[in-house]
């Protein structure tokens, strides 16, 4: 027994050490270098700053006329907009797709599930968006994000509907409840646990997305936070302090989210994957 205990303590120590060097050091590296003066940061060392240059953060925000603030606003709008639209459309779709067992619903389901595997065809999407006059707009970006996250979100809702008892709906229908109210006031509230998962997963995915804004939202005026970092990479090649300050600024929202919803995020991500 004592041998086993000793083994576990060794496991703890080895685990902490490995986690520290492999996973924590890169973050410490970002943070320390974001607080150094330019010349010192460019040495890319892992030491405490000689003087703490907190003004790096102010400078990153002030850069090109407060572009980063605009970018934060845009990213928040896109993230919130996509998540809200996804919750509404996909919960309804998942509900009906799970309850109606017909040929037509199973065909629709298979069509949507194609998107889990196959990547989007990008240029034809741009072409259609130009036709609709929504290319390079926040609205257009939201629609693209919604379309790309729809398969996964529908899958989560459809899977969860399996565990929602059908009797309530039948009783409500017989009592003369309309189909919209039946869904809105009986079914949707029951979906709360999976809705929480949907919010967190999609918020992380959309906020961190770089490729789609690069294609569908080019131009400085509509930049998202990821695009500002990409632009800074070109401009700040010799000012690592500002580059890392930007990295920290766009990572902090995720860190806050993680600290608050730690359990929920981890459970949601693993449950979502296993059901797929």
């Amino acid at each position, binding site marked *: 027994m004592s041998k086993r205990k000793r083994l*576990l303590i060794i*496991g*703890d120590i080895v*685990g*902490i050490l490995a*986690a520290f060097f*492999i*996973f924590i050091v*890169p973050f410490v*590296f*970002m943070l320390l270098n974001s607080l150094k003066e330019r010349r010192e940061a460019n040495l*890319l*060392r*892992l030491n405490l700053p000689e003087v703490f240059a907190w003004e790096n953060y102010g400078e990153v925000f002030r850069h090109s006329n407060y572009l980063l603030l605009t970018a934060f606003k845009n990213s928040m709008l896109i993230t919130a907009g996509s998540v809200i639209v996804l919750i509404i459309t996909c919960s*309804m*779709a998942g509900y*009906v797709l799970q*309850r*109606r067992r017909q040929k037509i*619903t199973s065909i*629709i389901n298979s*069509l949507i599930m194609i*998107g*889990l*595997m196959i*990547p*989007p*065809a*990008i*240029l*034809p*999407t*741009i*072409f*259609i968006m*130009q036709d*609709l006059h929504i290319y390079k707009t926040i609205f257009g970006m939201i*629609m*693209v994000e919604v379309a*790309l996250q*729809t398969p996964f979100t529908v899958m989560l809702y459809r899977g969860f509907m399996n565990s929602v008892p059908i009797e309530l709906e039948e009783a409500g*229908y017989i009592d003369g409840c309309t*189909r919209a109210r039946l869904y809105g006031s009986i079914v949707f509230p029951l979906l709360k646990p999976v809705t929480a998962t949907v919010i967190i997963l999609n918020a*992380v995915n959309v906020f*961190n997305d*770089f*490729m789609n804004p690069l*294609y569908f939202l080019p131009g400085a005026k509509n930049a998202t936070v*990821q695009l500002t*970092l*990409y632009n800074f*990479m070109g401009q700040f090649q010799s000012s690592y302090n500002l580059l*890392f300050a930007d990295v920290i600024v766009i*990572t902090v929202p*995720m860190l806050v989210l*993680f600290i608050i919803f730690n359990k929920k995020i*981890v459970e949601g*991500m693993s449950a979502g*994957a*296993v059901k797929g």
Partner: protein
Amino acid sequence: MNKNKIYSMWFLIPSIVIFSIFFLIPLVSSLFYSLTVWDFKNFTFVGLDNFKQYFSQKSLYGSIKNTLIYAFLTSGSKVVLAFIIAVLLTSKIKTKDFLRSIVFFPNLVSSLAVGVTFAALMHPTKGLFNLVLEGIGLGRIDWLGNPNLALYSVILTDVWKGVGIATVIYIAGIQCIDKGYYEAADIDGANGWQRLKCITIPLVRPAMNSIIILSLIGGLRSFDLIWSMTGGGPGFATDVMASVVYKQYAAGYYGLSTAGNVIMLVLIAAIAYPLQRYLLSKEEQ
């Protein structure tokens, strides 16, 4: 009563409309536009010329090989490494909750931020990685500048970022295993390795299959991390299919870019679909 009447087909309309306009229709029309030279206004039909060009230029078709190496190596490493970490983190060690959070967090950091940081850590002269290598008596490595090595450096970074999600999927799988099996094994006097080989590995199969499929598809589609670390370079050494699509688009070759996109989605479907079928059929046995 016809039960289907409770569930209005109208509920499907919003999802179907958005998904069709922004995914399905572009997908189908890409098959046509890949056969043309176009500029979003006019197009000229050129038959298979774009595909011929794609497969005749090394800088273009080379990306297929890089994509395959990238996807299979990242996926394989995550499947193995995450399993080892998950076994450690489901043992009785005290710090397991803390360690789980640490391993998982890089998943939530954007690929771009990770790319910037690791490109700095892998800096050829000043980077921390090389300082460590020199410190223990090994020479410097040009992580991202050596064409034979750059792809593997990005793969290493991808595994660092993505191993956490695979780990938590494994942990969920391991925790689903009935404790009775382990108790029976203890009574029979099985050692740790035997418990792992005969109980944990076979019963964690469904979780492992999810990880294989998810990480493989993710790897085949990957763009963000590669683009932020190397931009496809040096030369074309780390160009993957998604970065070729972007490069040709940025250069104004829309037809060629669309052809690259079509090749990419056909290849992904051709790999992922049969693999998923195969893994599921093995799971059911």
